[in-house]
């Protein structure tokens, strides 16, 4: 993206949404980094992890089964390190699945819970926590410090990656925005938020490996699917369907761009 493009975006953002974009004043970024460092200990996402673990191990649903036989890609019941290799192709469903769509498969097949019941509450709210979101928090926590290693080998994996890559730069909507409009240039900010440049290895790695995250502003732990939905909102796109092929493809592209980094979530964000 060239500078005039950036200027255009900044202008559009400032006019249309009262965002003020400032190109990297180092001192403020440093102060924010200091703030993040200071809050990094004592992450309330731990509670969501605990809740998720309980749900994983407790028999429920019409089949009164636990999720302990759920295959997240490393064999039935293996949770450790599974998230660092997702999304991936699954033989049983003949699909590429990310964590949340795979959890959906396990909950419907093993526990017999109707899909509509699960997708009716994909995300937590102030008054009620989402089971699938807590389960995701538990699973990702079991990949802490595991190197991201998402493979693009199988033809379906290749297809998902290519679709995701194209989606990332696909412009549309009332402002003609793509993900890349905001996330393909280094050192751009909206207000105080540094926008990660997903074409920069380091940026992509630190952004991807810090989600899911406890959002301080919301007092809730948020999943990766939630993160994508929120950026679709930023892009003025309609909200994508939970666990849809499109969101999985996009996740595939972002996950691959983070390969090689240690997974560091669940994170803690403003």
């Amino acid at each position, binding site marked *: 993206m060239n500078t005039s493009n950036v200027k255009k975006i900044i202008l559009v953002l400032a006019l249309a*949404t009262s*965002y003020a974009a400032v190109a990297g004043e180092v001192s*403020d970024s440093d*102060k*924010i980094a*200091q*703030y*993040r460092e*200071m*809050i990094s200990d*004592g992450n309330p996402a731990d509670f969501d992890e605990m809740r998720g673990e309980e749900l994983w191990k407790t028999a429920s649903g019409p089949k009164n089964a636990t999720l302990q036989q759920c295959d997240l890609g490393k064999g039935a019941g293996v949770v450790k390190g599974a998230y660092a290799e997702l999304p991936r192709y699954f033989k049983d469903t003949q699909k590429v699945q990310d964590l949340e769509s795979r959890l959906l498969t396990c909950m419907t097949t093993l526990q017999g819970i109707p899909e509509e019941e699960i997708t009716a509450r994909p995300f937590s709210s102030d008054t009620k926590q989402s089971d699938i979101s807590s389960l995701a928090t538990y699973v990702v926590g079991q990949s802490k410090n595991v190197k991201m290693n998402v493979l693009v080998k199988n033809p379906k994996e290749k297809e998902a990656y290519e679709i995701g890559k194209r989606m990332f730069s696909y412009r549309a909507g009332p402002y003609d925005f793509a993900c890349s409009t905001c996330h393909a240039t280094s050192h751009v900010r*909206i*207000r*105080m*938020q540094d926008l990660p440049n997903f074409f920069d290895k380091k940026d992509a790695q630190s952004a991807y490996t810090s989600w899911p995250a406890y959002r*301080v*502003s919301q*007092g809730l732990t948020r999943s990766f699917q939630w993160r994508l939905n*929120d950026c679709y*909102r*930023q892009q003025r796109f309609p909200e994508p369907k939970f666990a849809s092929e499109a969101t999985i493809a996009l996740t595939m592209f972002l996950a691959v761009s983070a390969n090689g980094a240690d997974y560091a979530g669940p994170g803690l964000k*403003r």
Partner: protein
Amino acid sequence: MNSEMNLERRKVLKVGGGVGLLALFASIGLVSPAMAEVDRKAFSAKSMDEALSAMGVIIPEKTDAIKLSVPEIAENGAVVPVSVETTLAKVEQISFFVDKNPNVLAAHFYLPAGTEGMITTRVKMGQTANVIALVKADGKFYKASREVKVTAGGCGG
């Protein structure tokens, strides 16, 4: 708010058939009697002056012996990490205040002998304001103060 909060406090104190819950806690050793008796009026104080007088503090001395750590900028006012560490001897109490919050006193700690003069917690801040740490050591009050800028939090979500 003021009376509402006092009411809440009173309700708590009534639980247990006239025996205050805190007193009940005290009797089983969860909370010391000294603490149960402490005047909680300071928690509904709307200004620093009001809070300090409710706590019986005259004029706290400024000192270099208190290190107050706060972020210069808080990305979100919902969670502002605050930390105090002091080299003063015989630290008895540490309190944190946010001077522009509706109720200025955020937390009050009693440190028995043997407990280090060091506390970390997290406070909410409605706007850019001063965080004040008050330390009582060997019967005397000391304070340290630092400003924290609270940003509006950016683009929703």
